[in-house]
């Protein structure tokens, strides 16, 4: 079976269910195409949780390897992306909260207090606000961060997040809230300033 020619990652391709059916029968070329389609998203989930490229790379690869191994449990017709993202999130959190990761000082983060003066209006403000937000995300606990990433970025339901992380939906709700509250607090000077700027720009 020739499969040297590769379709572009973002280009059109055969229906994914078809690819996955092939992959379930052991077709690695089909699975490779599935990987190509979902790699950015899976890597993104991993990176946002573990916050280091090398680790995210490991997590992303491992997520696809495990997806391959569990492919017979994957129900065709379901979306593959969330499924493999949940695997990645689970791996990522398990890693970040492992004792070894903590010893090595994995990113508990180092959020800075934003300066009282958000600086000149315009793009600089946005960049600054984003930096602050990113640091605040880094400062979340890994558990909070995972829940937040899966909800805010992946837009998963509480049930899906609960399943991915092995926690109850109620825990998802409270962790998510605490994460958001901390982030909103860190970001609030900028949200206010942004509002001011918007009004100025709109009038």
């Amino acid at each position, binding site marked *: 079976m020739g499969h040297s020619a590769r379709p572009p990652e973002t280009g059109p391709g055969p*229906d994914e*269910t078809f690819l996955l059916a092939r992959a379930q029968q052991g077709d690695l070329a089909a699975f490779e195409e599935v990987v190509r389609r979902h790699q950015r998203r899976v890597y993104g989930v991993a990176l946002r949780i573990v916050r*280091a490229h090398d680790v995210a790379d*490991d997590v992303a690869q491992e997520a696809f390897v495990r997806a391959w191994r569990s492919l017979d449990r994957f*129900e065709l017709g379901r*979306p593959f992306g969330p499924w493999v993202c949940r695997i990645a999130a689970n791996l990522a959190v398990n890693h970040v909260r492992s004792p070894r990761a903590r010893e090595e000082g994995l990113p508990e983060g180092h959020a800075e207090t934003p300066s009282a003066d958000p600086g000149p209006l315009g793009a600089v403000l946005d960049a600054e606000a*984003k930096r602050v937000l990113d640091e605040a995300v880094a400062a979340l606990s890994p558990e909070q961060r995972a829940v937040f990433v899966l909800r805010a970025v992946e*837009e998963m339901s509480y049930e899906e997040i609960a399943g991915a992380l092995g926690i109850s939906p109620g825990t998802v709700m409270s962790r998510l809230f605490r994460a958001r*509250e901390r982030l909103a607090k860190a970001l609030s000077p900028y949200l206010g300033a942004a509002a001011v700027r918007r009004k100025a720009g709109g009038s």
Partner: protein
Amino acid sequence: MSGHERERLSAYLDRQLPVAERAAVEAHLAGCPECAAFLAELAEVDEAAAALPAEAPEGYFETFPARVRSRLEAPKAGGGRRVPVWTWAAAAALVLAVVTPLTLRQRRAAPGETLPAPPVALQPAPSMAEPALADEARRPQTPSPALPARAAPAPPGRSKSVPAAGPAPVAADAPAVVPPASEVVPRASKDEARAEGRFAREPGAPPPAPAQVATAQVALAEAESAAAAGGPAPEPVANREKGVRERLRPAAAEATAESVSPALSAATAGPAVGAPDVREDEDAFRRLEAARPRSAVERRRLRDDWNAFAEAHPTSLRADEARVRAIVAAREAWLAGGDESDEDAFRRDAAAYLQRQDARQKPRVERLLAEP
């Protein structure tokens, strides 16, 4: 508002509250600008965080699929198992790797990715999964009641940040009947103002009420336009909605709408193309048949070899036998080594085989599955 009530706001934002609670929150929001403002902040935080890039080094994704594949092809494999996952280097690698210049509208979904819409019965990572996960996997697959908002048939754009109009599937005990939009929309809240600004062109959106809304509309239009680097204001919204629609399109639709790459269509055409290649595979088959694996590792390798044979000679009359022998080898590797990933491989191969139209030895495989 108490911490608990604030927590409900967070859940409200995600449309995860039962209808009764949802109504209570809305009633409160209507009379509490402070909470309305807090809700708007939460939504904004989500949006801003989603816009933060998660960028990989240049060229990373060009080689990634091949690297995954090579792990799956590795002789020890079924997928590079037992290689410690975390063999990554030390603290130097742990520097935060995330932030590079940020683009506001950068959303994660690459074209071609499907929407994670219908709640999926949970199928978590196998061996590293926690007990809770394992339980989850055994649970019968019932559709989750908490359907994410964006799975609604007529998505109001990025409805996620706007708990406003439209069908709002909520938690388990929610009745099927959802109140009309006009009854559930938190009026004149700050959040509403943002919503109006974002989706002012949408039919069915509640009419903007206070002057505050008008201001927000203009201001947001400006912001949109700036974000689009000078493009006309409506376009970013339109693009985004198009993006959402595309992501909502069922996967099956892609098959008809988009052309199939020649390489893959060839690869997936499967058997029944051309005559069986009788001779060329005979030697390989005999070699594998003569193998006498002694350890779990050798059996695992043999399983991979049989599968490789079947893949290399899909039209061969021997492919069927090779598939079954791969299953047998995987099972023996599992029994010899007790490695659960071998069990995974065995059960996956067997299940895949049983789904094949051209499988000729289903009873044999079913017996293998049934045996202890």
